[in-house]
């Protein structure tokens, strides 16, 4: 997983510097207006600034106090802007690295007459056909219409091993900016300039197209309401206090208002949203919208393909089976020799199994032997050892191969290979020269750790449904081994969409992963569709998330990130609101104590002086924002557990902490201020 090694530390100096500049730029009221809570703070700051500029008009006696208030208020806004800018900056840094791959290239467009003309990649339009040869960058997104090539997609996925793409089937789509390493292909361009996959990725990561999600909107409504309520409280306090002869200064009122409105969550809200998307990007998953990320947190059912998701696919050698009277050792040796230079998972698994069975040999010994790679035509691979061809491949392909060499087919080959197929495995025939010596039983193996992951999902209250083309018997075996909740055997592509619809009708939110064109309708139907980058363009377009690493199990991480995003919002909101209790106890006695000396007795914090009490509350209110930036960026820690436990834990930390923390914080700041005042 590339995500882990390129994870940026939170406060890279360059990013911090950029964010600092941005946070000043964001003071522009037109920008601030998008965040109503902080906009109120900005208006308050401007009023205090006016008071400093025209002290006589406002009858200011102690300009130092007003100056201090102005500075703290300004810092409060800058801190909030900084949080947002930092989150955006991290996205931009990721976008920059993507942009580098977007360098303009020269494309070889094939005209209607069949001639090749050189044009800039930016001039390509949907429907154009281009030729891409070894060493060329693919000039735009498209489908391969002719040819087969291995393509280096590391620019986008970070995975350095090239992948094979060919015309037709599920592996025909190519992405602009990736590089053809060998062979050639003809590509039909499917996206106009500016609309390509890479363009979309860049704008997503930059946050340019970020829209507020429904949940964010709902929370914003609550925050704006709280702001309005406290505005009413503060404004009405003026005449009410005046009735008993207490005159409240404008500065005091602004401080009271700023301390009471939920600035902590207001300042961090958009940073939380952006950071949530960034966390996904770090996992190499691209979400097409923030809404999809939130929906992921709500998922209650996951529909998974067996092959490639839960199991490795029919790829792991499990047994060497002799045919035609050979011994197991003979089969093993032949299998090993045909696989020794084979870097495919099947090849490696053969060596792995042989080693387990006690085979030892020096690989270097065969260094100079000729490797025969797998091709679509021959459907077999192997090695020529001192001229003798060792081959393994599909049973019919090997059968044809030995017949060509004049050999004969052992009588028990058919029976034994059919038996393997019946058990849900794949038989690979192994030949030495013109003789078929045995079969490699490639078994579907459940990926390590899957069981544990499904247990985790169950703890989160998420049901897993496995779809497989296998017969019910095999399906049940695998389902049991992996620990999924339900399975659908002998499923056809249209079964997936049926299952999803059924689950949705029960009110479940369904997530699924898929890669083939067949999967596109189901991906579109699912609430969260995670397409594999290796899949077809149709699948990618239908999905609302794309996994660049093409690892279907990542859906689990995606769900965790969705939950984490919501939890972080909830935690900081609760914290922010709970803070108000302590702020009241600090500010209100200080405000009234001059006129009502007895108010001293509700100053339970025993603060140094009224002025220091008020400033302490305001300073606490400001510094808590940068202190919580790491939490906003990383998200609240999420462990799968029952909602009841999770709630109790989070309420205790963020609700209880929200009540207590400011009491301590304000007292400490007051003690520090007391040294100067």
């Amino acid at each position: 997983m590339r995500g882990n090694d390129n994870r940026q530390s939170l406060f890279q100096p360059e990013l911090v510097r950029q964010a600092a500049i941005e946070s000043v730029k964001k003071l522009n009221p037109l920008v601030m207006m998008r965040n109503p809570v902080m906009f109120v703070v900005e208006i308050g700051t401007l009023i205090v600034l006016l008071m400093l500029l025209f002290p006589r008009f406002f009858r200011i006696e102690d300009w130092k106090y007003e100056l201090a208030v102005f500075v703290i208020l300004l810092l409060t806004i800058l801190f909030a802007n900084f949080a947002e800018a930092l989150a955006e900056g991290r996205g931009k840094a990721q976008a920059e690295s993507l942009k580098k791959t977007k360098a303009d290239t020269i494309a070889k467009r094939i005209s209607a007459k069949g001639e090749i003309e050189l044009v800039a990649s930016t001039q390509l339009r949907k429907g154009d056909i281009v030729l891409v040869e070894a060493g060329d960058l693919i000039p735009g997104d498209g489908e391969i219409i002719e040819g087969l090539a291995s393509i280096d997609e590391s620019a986008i996925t970070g995975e350095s091993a090239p992948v094979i793409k060919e015309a037709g089937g599920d592996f025909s789509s190519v992405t602009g900016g990736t590089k053809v390493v060998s062979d050639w292909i003809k590509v039909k361009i499917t996206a106009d300039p500016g609309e390509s996959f890479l363009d979309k990725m860049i704008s997503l990561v930059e946050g340019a197209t970020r829209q507020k999600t429904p949940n964010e909107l709902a929370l914003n409504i609550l925050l704006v309401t709280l702001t309005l309520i406290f505005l009413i409280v503060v404004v009405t306090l003026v005449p009410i206090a005046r009735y008993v002869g207490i005159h409240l200064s404008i500065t005091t009122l602004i401080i009271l208002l700023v301390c009471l409105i939920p600035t902590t969550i207001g300042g961090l809200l958009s940073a939380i949203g952006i950071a949530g998307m960034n966390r996904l990007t770090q996992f190499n998953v691209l979400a097409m919208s923030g809404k999809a990320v939130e929906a992921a947190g709500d998922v209650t059912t996951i529909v998974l393909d067996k092959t490639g998701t839960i199991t490795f696919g029919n790829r792991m050698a499990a047994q060497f089976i002799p045919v035609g009277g050979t011994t197991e050792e003979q089969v093993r040796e032949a299998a090993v020799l045909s696989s020794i230079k084979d870097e495919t998972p099947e090849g490696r698994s053969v060596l792995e199994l042989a080693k387990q069975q006690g085979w030892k040999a020096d690989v270097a010994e065969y260094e100079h032997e000729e490797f025969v790679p797998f091709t679509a035509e021959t459907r077999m691979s192997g090695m020529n050892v001192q001229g003798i061809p060792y081959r393994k491949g599909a049973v019919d392909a090997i059968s044809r191969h030995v017949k060509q060499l004049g050999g004969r087919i052992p009588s028990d080959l058919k029976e034994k290979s059919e038996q393997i197929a019946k058990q849900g495995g794949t038989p690979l025939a192994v030949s030495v020269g013109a003789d078929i010596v045995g079969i490699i039983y490639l078994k579907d193996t459940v990926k390590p750790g899957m069981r544990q992951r499904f247990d985790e999902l169950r703890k989160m209250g998420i049901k897993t449904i496995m779809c497989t083309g296998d017969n019910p018997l095999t399906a049940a075996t695998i389902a049991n081994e992996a620990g999924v909740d339900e399975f659908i055997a002998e499923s056809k592509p249209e079964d997936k969409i049926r299952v999803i619809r059924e689950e949705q009708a029960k009110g479940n939110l369904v997530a699924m992963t898929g890669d083939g064109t067949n999967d596109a309708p189901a991906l579109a139907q699912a609430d969260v569709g995670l397409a594999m980058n290796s899949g077809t363009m149709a699948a990618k377009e239908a999905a609302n998330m794309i996994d660049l690493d093409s690892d279907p199990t990542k859906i689990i991480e995606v769900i965790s990130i969705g939950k984490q995003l919501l939890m972080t919002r909830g935690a900081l909101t609760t914290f922010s609101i709970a803070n108000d209790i302590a702020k009241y106890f600090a500010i209100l006695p200080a405000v009234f104590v001059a006129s009502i000396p007895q108010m001293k007795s509700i100053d339970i914090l025993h603060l140094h002086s009224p002025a220091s009490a008020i400033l302490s509350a305001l300073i606490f209110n400001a510094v808590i924002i940068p202190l919580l930036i790491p939490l906003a960026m990383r998200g609240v820690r999420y462990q799968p557990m029952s909602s009841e436990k999770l709630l109790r834990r989070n309420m205790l930390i963020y609700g209880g902490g929200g009540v207590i923390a400011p009491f301590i914080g304000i007292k400490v700041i007051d003690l520090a201020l007391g040294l100067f005042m």
Partner: protein
Amino acid sequence: MWHVFSQYTLIFLLLIVIAVPLGKYLYVAFFEKGKIDRFFSPIEAVIYRLSGIRSLEEMTWKSYCTALLIVNAALLGISYGLLRIQHYLPLNGAKVENMEPTLTFNTVVSFMTNTNLQHYSGESGLSILSQMLFVTMMMFTSAATGLTVATALIRALSKKGKTIGNFYQDFVRANVRVLLPLSVIVTILLVAFGVPQTFLARMAVSTLEGGTQTLALGPVASLESIKHLGTNGGGFFGANSSHPFENPHPFTNVIEMLSMWCIPAALPFTYGHAVKNRKQGWVLFATMFVLFVMMLGVVYNAEQSGNPLVGKSGFAADQGNMEGKEVRFGIPLSSLFTAITTAATTGSVNNMHDSLTPIGGLVPLALMMLNNVFGGDGVGFVNIMMYAMIAVFLSGLMVGRTPEFLGRKIEPKEMKLIVIALLLHPLIILAPSAIALMTHMGTEAISNPGFHGISQVVYEYTSSAANNGSGFEGLKDNTAFWNISTGVVMLLGRYVSIIAMLAVAGSLVGKQPVPETIGTFRTDTATFGVILFGTVFIIGALTFFPVLILGPVAEYLTIR
């Protein structure tokens, strides 16, 4: 001390013994086809025929709300006309004059909104006809209106579709199946303990000193029953439930307290039955009950400690604060009455709230500011549900799910509606209080200037906004300014939240419920109760902190 504790415990137990089966009865009466239909349906059929209601089909929230508003507006209009010409109408033996326009406005609004803030004096402001046609009718209809809103919301949470019930059916059932039978029972009980029930308006008696005295009488017991059952609060006599004919005996005191408390306390259980999860109801009940007991503890303690100024002037202060209280009830039952009447937003009083100690007076204020500790018939339940939705919103986020309430997602649309109601309550208390304290029109009514003056003004608007109707009676409030401003506050306090919450009901009923899994945040646990408590306490109370500090708390601190 322990006798107070045991009295309270006994009354609480009685409440639970009444509220739990009453909750079930309300469920059967409104939601279940069953035996009781056979008894009540013929009566209701007559009413439907007489009033021309032909269709009892379920309504969308919009038509439900429209029907509610039209019925209320019509009753309002008729009542206004009635009071303005009562002088010329029959049954006016005492020759009561027509009511002045602003006072009429205030009075009809006050009764229609279940507030019963009486700026007129009970005995002399209304003719017998007005008492019977207007006061008694409004006491039934306003309580029934409140109940319909609760049933609509409960229905919305317990089914899926587009409709939330038929307003006319709910309204008629609330009267026929709930309020009428219950008030008959309570009336008989009250009469048994000596509350008068007669058409005799006056009775002359000779006093022990040999003089003669004219006693005002009337059908007191029947009014008293619906006054409390309907959480109305408007008294037959100006002195309300402290008057010996309205509330002669400690037993009648207990009956009255339980009658105003029982329907608001039963509705959570009704809800539990309707959503097929009785624990849901218990959690709501328990949360409100804990809030209530806390408040009761504060008022009892403050009254028992008495007024320090009395002690300082050389009088024995160990009696506690008996000013404004009836000796037959004493401090414990007066404190309890005060707490219940403001929690259930009834507004009847058996002691004068203006005479409570500063902290004692803070309790009824705070209960009305919260407006969701049991609350008035139906509307109180709707209010606590509104806070429950906010609590669910915050805690749903905390477990990483889009917040859902009984499987229904709380999204921007519902949030917008909820916050309208949330925002309005402090606005209509604080803004008019500020205006009143700023202007001569407002301040001239205050009888005790200073911090207590703030309490008087804020109390009046809080009582209006919460549709409670009790007053810090020191305020001289029968002026155009007070009549109109409190009238507007009562209207807003009642109908805006009703419309908003019916809209929430209409929106929730249409949602596909999300099935419950272990990852779902549950609302039937003690944890949720604690969170709901915190939400009510922090969001509901923080708003009023400053004004409470300047009013009761400052008064308390300065007389210590």
